[in-house]
């Protein structure tokens, strides 16, 4: 009984914290972008403009929830929920601290990869059901981009799996007690980070929604709370990838002095800021450049990393 209650508290606590955090990221991103562009960003509503989130939420809930008459209605409605559900499900396997974890899956990492693949459906279906050429183009781009980046996203993680000898993320974190995997798996980390940026379709890899050519890509036709779900889904994705990088390459909750949950939050926060810094810095590559970069640079690097790691492990006789 106590066990069930504990699980329920963790699940709903996580849902609440993650939704709040990803909504808060709207404010954080605007403030940080402004900071890096010599502006102030939203600083009027509440202390430091923090209540901007509340204002945005009120606005987005009160907006007309318009479904275009030419859209494929059921698919149009379901599409934004998929990204939220898939991302939330991925969080289930992430160990935030030794105590805070929804499930300790032995195939945790595979589960995450599967869920992030499912997230693609959201974007593709949204683009397809909108029955709008820009949305469709966005959807097509999303499909191609995510599928090709997923290939080496999975490959880049296999090095850590080999080092830790487990797909369970908790075991991977525990295996980093001596040395964080960001050092032996440096290239794996870099590849995973880049793939993660592409997976959440964040700038510089936001081709599915590139504003200056596709209006807003796959969510052109979306408004109100459905648009809000795509929006929050994107921030959830950032949080997820940051949390995963923290867990897989930067020792998760491990760290001196501070309690584990603080360490995990601090590291995740750092990577979220890094995501935003990327957006502040880089322009968007052309579509063929994006694909060429994925297949000609990232995939070989990921494979090489895999082979070298495997070779060293074999030579050591582990």
């Amino acid at each position: 009984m106590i066990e069930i209650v504990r699980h329920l508290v963790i699940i709903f606590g996580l849902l609440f914290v993650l939704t709040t955090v990803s909504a808060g990221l709207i404010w954080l991103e605007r403030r940080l972008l402004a900071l890096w562009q010599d502006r102030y960003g939203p600083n009027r509503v509440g202390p430091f403009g923090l209540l901007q989130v509340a204002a945005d939420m009120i606005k987005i809930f009160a907006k007309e929830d318009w479904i275009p008459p030419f859209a494929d209605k059921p698919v149009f409605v379901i599409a934004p929920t998929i990204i939220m559900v898939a991302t939330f499900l991925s969080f289930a396997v992430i160990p935030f601290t030794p105590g805070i974890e929804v499930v300790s899956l032995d195939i945790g990492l595979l589960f995450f990869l599967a869920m992030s693949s499912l997230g693609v459906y959201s974007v593709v279906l949204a683009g397809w059901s909108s029955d709008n050429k820009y949305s469709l183009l966005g959807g097509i781009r999303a499909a191609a981009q995510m599928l090709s980046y997923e290939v080496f996203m999975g490959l880049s993680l296999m090095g850590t799996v080999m080092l830790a000898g487990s797909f369970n993320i908790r075991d991977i974190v525990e295996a980093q007690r001596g040395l964080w995997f960001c050092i032996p798996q440096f290239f794996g980390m870099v590849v995973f980070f880049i793939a993660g940026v592409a997976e959440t379709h964040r700038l510089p890899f936001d081709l599915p929604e590139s504003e200056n050519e596709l209006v807003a890509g796959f969510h052109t036709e979306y408004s109100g709370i459905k648009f809000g779900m795509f929006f929050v889904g994107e921030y959830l994705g950032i949080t997820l990838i940051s949390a995963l990088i923290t867990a897989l390459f930067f020792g998760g909750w491990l760290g001196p002095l501070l309690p584990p949950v603080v360490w995990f939050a601090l590291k995740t926060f750092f990577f979220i800021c890094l995501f935003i810094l990327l957006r502040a810095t880089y322009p968007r590559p052309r579509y063929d450049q994006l694909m060429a970069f994925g297949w000609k640079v990232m995939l070989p690097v990921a494979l090489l990393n895999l082979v070298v790691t495997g070779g060293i492990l074999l030579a050591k006789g582990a």
Partner: protein
Amino acid sequence: MLSMLRAAWLVFLHMFRKRETVQYPEERRPLPARWRGRIILSRDPDGGERCVACYLCAAACPVDCISLQATQDESGRRYPEFFRINFSRCIFCGFCEEACPTYAIQLTPDYEMSEYMRHALVYEKEDLLISGQGKYHGYNFYRVAGMAIGGKDKGEAENEEPPVDVRSLTL
């Protein structure tokens, strides 16, 4: 690759730069000396309306936002019966001020004219007329013009000689 990392670092360093934003209601930038803002109608030093309703401003206005109707009082002084400026059309070009022969219409440095209702931007004469002389002090059109009005006959204006009586000329 290195240049990309450098770019990110340089963007990061912008965090410590001075902000470009001016926090408007609390903080204001100095206005240029010849700022053209809200239009007013001024009065002469005696407190009378300067506007003689000559329609030149309305004619000069490129967006036709000025509308007025001329009339006369019993002393023969011309003045506008109504004078209306639609500020939702006005482009603040200042042509009306240039066209005005009596310094009546003037542009001021005020630019905070936001309204919640569109029709609140249509200013009537009582909204436009101020109690002072605006930018040009001491100028009184009827005191320097040769026109005869009640209380001032021809030849009684400043620096004006009395008109020549043609019948007095003897040769």
